[in-house]
């Protein structure tokens, strides 16, 4: 160690090269599944064989995607129908809760906040049985509406957390100034807090979009009919079936991955912030 540090002028290049080699090797590990997904999905049905699974395709064939869309297109649209309202409602609720828990604290509001946060960590297995009973009773079991409700409710903890931590950073003087100017609860929210929290909305929207799109357990339990399942459940069914060629499974996996991957590529900065907001305070 000391030799590397002290012989900098001469020995500087070699550790740098090793550093890059290591980073590229690890990057290869991360990209390996993507490579496999992409090349397999682009092969023609005749070309797909397990003994040549790592070889590049001879040309670009989109048959696998076509077939995957035939099987999963419906559920893809289900997921779209599910994720949009659930994300929008989550954002509004979370923002309102965050506003109250940061700027309108009341006796016990910190305890309430902690009690809400606990909901973020529970294994959903511990609520599934009553959830199914209640959704059946109110006629939402097996429907996309039932899934929306479920995702909105269990999304309250994380969305509240992110917005609350965001609003804590907004100076209370602004709120006081608003009050002096005669603004009420909603006036302050509408004219002061909401305009300031657009980045917060982006972070929460991306977070909810990604988690709801990727979610599997609720989809599996709450939707029973094949024409109502979200896309992750459809993919799991596809991968479990013996009769589907595996190139179709790979194309299906890419289809499922595409929306969140696009969000990550174009809005990665916000995605990361949501990621860290869930784990670090403030």
């Amino acid at each position: 160690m000391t030799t590397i540090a002290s012989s900098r002028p001469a020995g500087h290049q070699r550790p740098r090269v090793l550093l890059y080699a290591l980073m590229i090797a690890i990057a290869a590990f991360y990209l390996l599944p993507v490579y496999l997904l992409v090349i397999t999905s682009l092969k023609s049905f005749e070309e797909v064989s397990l003994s040549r699974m790592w070889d590049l395709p001879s040309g670009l064939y989109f048959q696998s995607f076509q077939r995957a869309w035939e099987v999963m297109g419906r559920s893809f649209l289900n997921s779209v129908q599910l994720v949009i309202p659930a994300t929008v409602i989550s954002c509004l609720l979370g923002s309102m809760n965050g506003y109250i828990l940061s700027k309108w604290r009341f006796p016990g509001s910190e305890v309430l906040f902690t009690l809400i946060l606990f909901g973020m960590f529970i294994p959903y297995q511990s609520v599934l049985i009553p959830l199914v009973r209640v959704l059946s009773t109110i006629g939402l079991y097996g429907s996309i509406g039932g899934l929306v409700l479920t995702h909105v409710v269990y999304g309250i903890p994380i969305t509240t957390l992110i917005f609350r931590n965001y609003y804590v950073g907004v100076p209370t003087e602004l709120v006081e100034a608003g009050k002096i100017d005669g603004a009420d609860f909603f006036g302050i929210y509408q004219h002061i807090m909401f305009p300031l929290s657009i980045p917060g909305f982006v972070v929460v929207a991306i977070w909810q979009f990604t988690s709801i799109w990727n979610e599997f357990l609720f989809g599996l339990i709450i939707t029973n009919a094949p024409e109502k399942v979200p896309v992750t459940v459809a993919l799991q069914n596809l991968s479990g079936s013996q009769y589907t060629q595996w190139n179709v499974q790979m194309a299906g996996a890419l289809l499922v991955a595409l929306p969140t991957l696009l969000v990550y590529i174009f809005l990665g900065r916000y995605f990361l912030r949501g990621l860290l907001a869930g784990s670090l305070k403030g």
Partner: protein
Amino acid sequence: MEQVKTQEIAAPGHVHRRRWLTRDRLTALLMIAPSAIAIAVFVYGFIGWTGYISLTKWASITPDYTFVGFKNYVDIFNTGRFQTDIRNTIVFTAFFLVGCLALGLLLAMLIDSHVKGEAIFRSIYIFPMSLSFIVTGVAWLWIFTPGNYPTDPTGINLLLHRIGLDFLQSAFITDTRVVPGWYPDWARTKIGVPLAMIPVVIAAIWQMSGFTMAMYLAGLRGISEEIKEAARVDGASEWQVFRHVILPLLQPVTLSAVIILGHISLKIFDLILTMTHGGPGNATDVPGTFMYEITFKANQIARGAAVAIVMLLLVAVLIVPYLIYNARTEVEQ
């Protein structure tokens, strides 16, 4: 706690002291009520309900709330399958935590050493976080499908064959061995590491290590150059700086990471279902898959509820102290 209360109440000033409940405050309470009620019902109410079900006889489609005490818990802990699940959860959690923390810290240190193309590397390491466990499972399932090796290998085995490392070929997700596989009288499962779990753990680390890296990176960026320089001036080697300056300062990050990763691994379900379905045998079965099957496939509702409550308790042991600690420090600020 007391301090905060007095502050809050004093804040509006003397004039309003007698009228704490203004119209605005009432609006605030009304606006947060739906969320509070939803959480009270869907989280705490449902957990209580599940807990109650776990003490009943309910074992068919029609509810049966005949009280049987802790019988279901005694039953599940006496089955080989649930004992296997507990073993597997411990193994999975241990490997997953160590793997994510070690790889995450290594990646954060690499990224933090002022490399060119930092943003590209970082994006590559983190992107799996944006995918569903099902997608991850489908991809890694095929990578770890062994094929009829050595004659007709697939996946990793095929890659190993191509580079002449045939001796490293393995049964991966179809491996039935448990190492070392002790089988004491009191246990109904072999004690050790089920080898089929290793590929699943690798897939999980692939997905979550970038997240760990992001956390460590945020922590590293918060450590000032002066502190490190001061240690170096005092004659500390780079290793000593790392061991005695950087690592202790990263401790809060490690704690958060352990909490987040730990609760994910205790709940793991999707990835197992897609990659192995709990097999071979029950080699990779976990409480999540067990609960799903006995509850929703076999209608043993009360037993499923008992498994769910055990899962909840495992998570609570990890989370509750953390939440209370968080709430306390929050108040101190």
